[in-house]
């Protein structure tokens, strides 16, 4: 990370990092991801490292996500999550 330059921060010039991208996910019988397809071809899940759930911001627009940290075929280390409200899966860097 670069040293802070002490220049005043301007929120309108902030660009989000690690924005989740929608992805098609195939689930196995237990409901865990079995394969993913981000439009460039299907890749199977080699290993599931960890799974967790968050329920946040219930006081405004609730965020409910089911996260799964996985290793994909070829060695890619990614985090997948399902937006439980929208029933949509996303991919993100760990």
């Amino acid at each position: 990370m670069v040293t802070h330059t002490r220049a005043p921060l301007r929120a309108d010039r902030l660009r989000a990092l690690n924005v989740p991208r929608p992805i098609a996910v195939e689930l196995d019988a237990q409901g865990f991801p079995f394969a993913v397809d981000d439009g460039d071809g299907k890749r199977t899940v080699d290993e599931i490292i960890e799974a967790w759930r968050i329920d946040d911001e219930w006081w405004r627009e609730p965020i409910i996500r089911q996260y799964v940290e996985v290793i994909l075929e070829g060695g890619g280390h990614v985090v997948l999550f399902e937006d439980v409200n929208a029933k949509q899966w996303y991919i993100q860097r760990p």
Partner: protein
Amino acid sequence: MLSSELAVCLWVPLFPLRCEERRRPELVRKPTALLSPTDTRRLWQVSPTARRMGVRVGMTVSQSIGLCPSLTLCEPDPVYYDEQFARLLLALGDVSPVIEPAELGRVFVGADGLEGLYGGPGKVLRVIGRVIGERGTGNGERATLAHRPNKGKREEGRGKGAASTNRAKQRSRRTLPTSRFPLPGGGVGWAEVMRLGWGRGKFISWVAATRAKPGDAVIVSNGERRTFLASQPVAVLPVSSDTHRRMWQLGIKTLADVARLPETALVSQFGSEGGRAWQLAAGNADDPVTGQERPEPIVAAIDFPAPVADRIMLAHTLDKLIERALKHPRRIGWRVHVVRVRATLEHGASWMAGATLRDPSAHRDHIAAPLKVRLDQAPPSGAVEHLAVEFTAFARGTDELQLFARDASAAARAGRRRALHTAAHEIQTRLRRPMLSHIIEVQPWSRIPERRYALIDFEP
């Protein structure tokens, strides 16, 4: 020092010979051999066409001409091969910051994090193929993304018998735990001849590259690495020829045979080499790609007014060039670890000798000694027109020089910071907006990953 567990191996077999073919395309279809840089009476590399005619590496020139009268012999030009390889490394540096050259024509590229930038392994390999095709080409030419005309002709010429062989090959490929695909190629680029392998660790990526056809890539997924390795011959193991021979005598022919044995049995039979072989064969070895920051070399060179063949004169010039290079301000506080001497010869060939000093030194005679030994044992094959000495790697100075070393290190850091600020200003002035960003913490404690950090324009 940067390292990466995921590795891509880029391999161009017979790299020096391929360099000659790229320089003189008429050689491609002829039986060709390169003479050895250390003994020009013997062959160093042999093209597949010449090999089919019985010509072998290490043969004398007269033996090879006897077997193949149409053989074209090329004088070695090690400086040119080195430049071409450096060009490949430079192009790969645009794809990944972790580059580890293994030998001429074989390099490992760290692939950790590249999937986030380019997509899956296939996409990363295609990017490498494209970059090498476009930027890794020498002589300023650019590879086109056209299909391969030669390959097309071969396909047309095949009959029905060949089609059934193809079907058999496809069947056998489906059973392999790997995926393979052609790389984006060009008629004149390296993409035609290079092979790429993808896997976890250098060994798996190297074995994958050896299984790829020219211009193709093989991906070994992490989950399938053991299945992939099991069917490979023991010849892929980086052990001595004696160990290979003994393994064959004991009936150990594949990596599955090695992995089936207890590790202790291999250690007791082959020593530490056996233990390493077991780890590699079982897919347990953790051999990440390690990239090193390469300092800009310090070079001192001279153009002779008339070509010089006298060895005493060359040795004296070597001393003077080393003295001149040692006086370079960037060398102060550092000892020389790797030195290289390059010569351009009268008839267009070249000569090169290098040495890695076991005890890095800042003394002329210590640095010159191994180079003079090479000059005596394997002198240039012709008169020298241009001679250059390069210091390419350095070690910190001795205790009494540490003070200078720290100064040099601090000065280098300050210099880098100044250069960064100047570059940022220049970009902002030219493009009217800053194109550089830096990462800031927004909600580093957040359970929602995309809220933790953000990018903001870098304004020095």
